[in-house]
C-alpha cells in the first residue's frame, strides 16, 4: 500500500516550494526517510543541526525534550497528558483533576482542547539522568489546525496518540502531516488498550501502512488506567531529539502563543532557538520592530508561571514585558535582542483566515457595547476571531464575525454567553462568496443580505474544500450518498484495510457548514471522521433565498444556497418559521422567495388564548407580574417586519439540524 504521507508531503512541497527532498515511507522497513538516500530519520537530528550550521548541543540541551501530543479528537490526548504530569510528579495525585491542561471550563465540559498550552515536567530515567520535558498541548479539531502548526514549530517531536479501538482517523492523518511538515520526530502511542475492543497489532500495522512511521515497538498504553505510560516517558527521552541551537548566538525565539493576563499584561509563550534571554533585556519583536524591556522570564508549570533567571537555546518558556495587547505580539514572530539582533528571523506563520461568517447580535439591543467589549477581549487571546460592526433591519446593531469553522463559532458564542453573560442572536453561518457583477465589479460577500440579485450576477463562485473521510466500509454507500447529496465531487476511494475506507471528495464549504458533520456522524453511527482543507473557488449556480413575514422581507433570514437546493431549503425553513413564530393577534403569512419568485409558503395562525382567567381573592400581583413579564419580553422582542419574535424563537429558527 502506498503511504499517503508521500502524496501529502509532495503536495505541501509543491505548494510551498520550500522542500526539495521527498520523504516517503517504506513499509516493512517502517521508516520515514528521504527517497534519495538522504539520512534516515534517526539521523535527522544531526541533519537538522548540520542544516542550521551548528555544532554539537550542550549537555543542558541534551536533557531537554520539547514535544506535542497530537491526536484525533477523543483519542485520549488530554488524558495522556494528565498521566504524564502525574507520573513525573509535576502534579500530585491530590491536585490531579481531569484535563489539567484544559483549564477553560468549556474545554473540560466538552472534553476538547481549544487553546494550545505548554507545561514543563521533570523526568528521571532508569540510569538516573534527569530530563526537562516541555509538553505543548494542542487542539484536536480541524478548526484549530493552525494552533497545532504553531505548537509543532516549537518542538522536536510529537506523540501521535491513536485509539486502539478506532485506529487512524481523519485528524490523526491531518495532524501527522502537520508534524511531518514541521520536521518532527513522530512517536506513535497506541492508547485505550484496556478496552475489550482494542486491536493493538492491527493499529500498529495501520500506523506503519497508512502513515508510514515505525510502530512495532511503540508504546501501547492505557492513559486512563496508567498502564505502560512509563514507556511513553522513556521513549520520549530515547526517540525524540534533543533541541539544538547556539546559546552564544544572537537571541532568536519563536512566539508560539500569547495570552493576556490582567496583572502581567501579555504573556508571550516562546521557544528559544538561539541565544539567551533574561529579565531586563531589551527585546525586539522583529515583524513589528516594537521593542520592550523584559520584566520577567520563566517556565510554565501546571498551576502557573514560575520565574527563572534565564532562558537559553532549546528552552520553552515565557516572557512578560508590560505589553498591553496581544495584538502587538504576533504568533510566529521572532523575538530578538535589540542590542544584538539575529540576522535570520524565523519565517513566521501565515495569518489565519476565517472561513465561516455569521452575524452576532445582542438579544438585548442595549448591550451592543458590552458585546463589542467582549469580542475585543476574546480577540486578545484568539487572533483567528475577526469581527466588524454590521446593522440588520431585523436585529439592529451587531457584528459580522469570522471564524475558522463551526466549532470555533460555537465556542466563541458559548464563551460570550458564559464569560460575559450575554444573550445572543446568531444568524445562520455563511462562507465568503466571490461574485462578479455584470458591470464587472468584483465582490467578496460574507453577508447573505448583500448578495446581489440574480439579474446583476455575471458569475458567482463558492469556496470548495478537499475533504477526507475515513469510515468503516459498511457506511461507504450512505456516506457517498451524503456527499453526492451535498454536491460533492468524487475524487478517490482507498481501502486502508479490509474494513476501513478513505474517501476523498471535493465539497462546497457551504454544504459542510450546513450541518455536514452531524449528518456524517449519524449516517456512520459516529464512526466516520472528517478532515478538510480549502482547495479554492469554483463557479456555482448560487441564489439568495429571502424570507418574507407578512409580506415584508427579513434581512437576517436570507441565505445563499445552490439553485437546486433552494426549493427544499425554502420549504424546510418556512415550516420551521411557522413552528417557532409565536401566534400573534393576526395571521402571519410566511413566504420564501428567490428574487421575486415565491417558492414556498406557510401560515402562522392567529393567537386565540392568552388570558389570566382568575384574579382570586383580590390578589392582583400575579396579573401584574404577568404584564411586567410580557413587557420585559416585549423589550427583547425583535421586530421582523410587523411580526414580533423572541430571541429564543429566532435562534430556534436559525438552528441548523439534519436534513432528514
Amino acid at each position: 500500500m502506498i503511504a499517503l504521507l508521500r502524496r501529502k508531503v509532495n503536495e505541501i512541497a509543491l505548494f510551498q516550494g520550500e522542500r526539495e527532498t521527498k520523504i516517503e515511507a517504506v513499509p516493512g522497513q517502517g521508516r520515514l526517510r528521504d527517497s534519495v538516500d538522504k539520512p534516515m530519520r534517526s539521523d535527522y537530528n544531526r541533519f537538522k543541526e548540520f542544516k542550521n550550521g551548528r555544532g554539537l548541543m550542550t549537555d543542558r540541551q541534551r536533557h531537554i525534550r520539547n514535544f506535542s501530543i497530537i491526536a484525533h479528537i477523543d483519542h485520549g490526548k488530554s488524558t495522556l497528558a494528565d498521566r504524564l504530569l502525574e507520573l513525573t510528579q509535576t502534579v500530585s495525585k491530590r491536585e490531579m483533576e481531569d484535563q489539567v491542561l484544559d483549564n477553560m471550563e468549556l474545554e473540560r465540559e466538552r472534553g476538547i482542547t481549544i487553546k494550545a498550552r505548554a507545561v514543563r515536567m521533570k523526568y528521571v530515567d532508569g540510569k538516573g539522568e534527569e530530563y526537562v520535558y516541555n509538553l505543548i498541548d494542542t487542539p484536536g479539531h480541524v478548526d484549530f489546525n493552525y494552533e497545532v502548526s504553531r505548537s509543532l514549530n516549537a518542538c522536536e517531536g510529537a506523540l501521535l496518540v491513536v485509539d486502539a479501538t478506532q485506529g487512524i482517523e481523519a485528524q490523526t492523518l491531518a495532524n501527522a502531516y502537520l508534524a511531518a511538515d514541521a520536521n518532527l520526530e513522530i512517536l506513535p502511542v497506541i492508547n485505550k488498550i484496556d478496552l475489550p475492543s482494542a486491536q493493538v497489532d492491527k493499529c500498529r500495522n495501520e500506523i506503519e501502512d497508512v502513515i508510514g512511521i515505525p510502530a512495532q515497538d511503540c508504546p501501547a498504553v492505557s492513559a486512563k488506567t496508567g498502564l505502560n505510560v512509563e514507556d511513553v516517558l522513556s521513549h520520549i527521552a530515547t526517540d525524540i531529539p534533543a533541541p539544538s541551537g547556539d546559546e552564544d548566538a544572537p537571541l532568536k525565539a519563536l512566539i508560539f502563543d500569547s495570552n493576556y493576563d490582567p496583572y502581567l499584561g501579555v504573556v508571550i509563550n516562546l521557544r528559544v532557538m538561539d541565544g539567551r534571554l533574561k529579565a531586563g533585556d531589551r527585546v525586539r519583536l522583529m515583524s513589528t520592530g516594537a521593542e520592550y524591556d523584559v520584566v520577567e522570564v520563566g517556565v510554565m508549570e501546571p498551576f502557573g508561571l514560575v520565574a527563572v533567571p534565564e532562558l537559553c537555546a532549546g528552552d520553552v518558556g515565557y516572557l512578560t514585558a508590560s505589553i498591553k495587547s496581544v495584538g502587538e505580539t504576533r504568533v510566529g514572530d521572532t523575538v530578538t535582542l535589540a542590542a544584538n539582533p539575529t540576522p535570520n528571523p524565523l519565517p513566521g506563520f501565515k495569518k489565519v483566515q476565517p472561513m465561516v461568517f455569521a452575524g452576532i447580535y445582542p438579544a438585548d439591543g442595549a448591550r451592543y457595547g458590552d458585546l463589542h467589549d467582549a469580542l475585543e477581549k476574546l480577540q486578545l487571546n484568539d487572533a483567528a476571531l475577526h469581527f466588524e460592526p454590521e446593522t440588520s433591519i431585523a436585529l439592529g446593531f451587531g457584528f459580522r464575525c469570522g471564524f475558522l469553522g463551526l466549532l470555533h463559532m460555537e465556542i466563541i458564542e458559548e464563551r460570550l454567553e458564559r464569560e460575559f453573560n450575554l444573550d445572543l442572536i446568531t444568524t445562520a453561518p455563511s462562507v465568503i462568496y466571490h461574485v462578479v457583477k455584470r458591470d464587472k465589479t468584483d465582490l467578496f460577500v460574507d453577508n447573505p443580505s448583500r448578495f446581489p440579485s440574480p439579474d446583476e450576477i455575471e458569475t458567482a463562485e463558492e469556496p470548495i474544500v478537499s475533504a477526507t473521510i475515513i469510515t468503516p466500509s459498511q457506511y461507504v454507500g450512505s456516506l457517498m450518498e451524503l456527499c453526492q447529496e451535498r454536491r460533492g465531487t468524487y475524487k478517490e476511494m482507498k481501502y486502508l484495510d479490509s474494513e476501513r475506507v478513505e474517501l476523498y471528495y471535493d465539497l462546497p464549504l457551504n454544504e459542510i457548514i450546513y450541518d455536514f458533520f452531524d449528518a456524517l456522524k449519524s449516517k456512520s453511527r459516529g464512526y466516520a471522521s472528517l478532515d478538510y482543507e480549502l482547495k479554492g473557488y469554483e463557479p456555482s449556480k448560487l441564489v439568495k433565498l429571502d424570507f418574507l413575514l407578512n409580506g415584508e422581507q427579513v434581512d437576517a433570514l436570507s441565505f445563499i444556497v445552490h439553485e437546486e437546493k433552494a426549493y427544499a431549503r425554502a420549504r424546510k425553513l418556512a415550516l420551521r418559521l411557522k413552528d417557532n413564530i409565536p401566534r400573534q393577534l393576526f395571521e402571519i403569512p410566511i413566504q420564501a422567495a428567490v428574487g421575486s419568485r415565491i417558492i414556498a409558503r406557510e401560515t402562522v395562525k392567529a393567537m386565540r388564548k392568552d388570558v389570566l382567567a382568575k384574579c382570586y381573592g383580590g390578589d392582583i400581583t400575579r396579573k401584574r407580574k404577568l404584564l411586567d413579564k410580557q413587557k420585559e419580553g416585549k423589550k427583547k422582542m425583535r421586530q421582523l417586519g410587523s411580526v414580533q419574535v423572541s430571541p429564543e424563537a429566532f435562534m430556534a429558527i436559525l438552528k441548523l439540524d439534519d436534513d432528514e
Partner: protein
Amino acid sequence: MNKPLGLYVHIPFCVRKCLYCDFCSYAGQTQSVRERYVKALSEQMEFYAGRERPQVDTVFFGGGTPTCLEPNQLALLLEKIRTCFALSGDAEVTFECNPGTADEKAFATLRRAGFNRVSLGAQSFEAEELSAIGRIHTAPEIDRAVQGARAAGFERISLDLMFGLPGQTKASFSRTLERALVLDVGHLSVYALQLEPGTPLYDRASRYVFPDEDEVADLYETACRTLGEAGYIHYEISNFARPGQACRHNLKYWNCDPYLGLGVSAHSYIGGRRFYFGDGLASFLDGDRPERTEVELTPAMEKRDYLMLRLRLDRGVCEREYTERFGEPFPPAFVAAAGRLAASGWVGTDPTPGARRVFLPEKSFFVSNRILSELLGDEKTE
C-alpha cells in the same frame, strides 16, 4: 369620599385538595385548629376595625372551603363582623361552598345568620372530568346543593364552571353548560383551567390529554354563545350574570375599590396600599400576622393596575372616572395604542364627549393579556 369596604375572609380548609388547586388551603386539619383559626380571624377583625367601625357593604367568605367550618362557626364570624364593622343593611354576603360539604340544614343556618349569596364550586357535571381534577363531589350533588340553597331561601346563587379540563370536549362542556342552565342560577363564573407549577395536575400533565389552545378557545366561545343566548351578560372575562346579579364584591377588585382581606394569604387594597398576609397557618394561629407588601405602589403603578383591572370588565374604563380618580386624562400612549387596536377591532371605544370609554369587546377577552400588554406596554411605570 370614603367608599364602603369589601371584606374578604379566607377559610384555608378543605376536605381534600383538588389536583389543580394552588390556593392556600390545608386538608385534614383538626377541629381545634379550626377553632383557633376562627378565634384568630375574630382578633384580626377587632384589630383592623378598631374603634372606627368602618362601613362594609360586601362580605365574601372564600377558601379553601368555607363550609369546612361548622355553619355556626361561620355564623359566629359574620356576627363578629357585624359587631366590629358597620355592615350595611343591603350588604351582599357570600360564602363559597363545595357541593359535597353542605346540606339543606347548613344552608338554612347560614341563611338565618345573614348570608344571602352562595357561590358553589360545581366545575363540571361530567363524572370523569370531576374525578380527573380530584373534586370530592358528584354532579347530582351539585343539583341537590342548588335545590338545598334555594329551599333555605338563597335567591342569589352562583356556579363556578371550568373548561380546558383533561378529556373535556365541546360536547361534554355543552352538556355541563346545559345542566347549569337548567338550574337557572343568576350568576356563572366560567374559568379556563390554569396549570400551576407545584400542583399534582401540573406535575402529572403528561399523563392527561388536555384540549389544545384552539380547542380551549372553542370551549370559551361555546360558553360565551350559550350563556349569551340564555340571557346572561358577560360582564367580566370569566363571569356571566343575569341583569342585576353581578357579584358586587368581586366588582370591587376590578374597579379598584377598597377591600380588606383577613386570614392567611388574604390580600387587601385599602387606603391606597396593597398588602397581604402570609400562607403559614401555624404562625398565623400564633398571632404572627405581619402585613406584607410586594412593592410600594407608585402613582404610575396605580394607574396601570386600574386600567388593567377595569379592562377585565365589559364596560372597560371611562375617562371621566379615571380623571376623577387620578386628576388627569388617559395617558397619551394608552389612547394611541387603543386607537391602533380599535382600527383592527380588538378594542372598542366610545367617543361620547366627556365620557370617553375604552373597553375590550367579547372577542378580545380570551387574548386580553396580549391586548393589555399592547395597551399598557409603552407606559412609563416608574
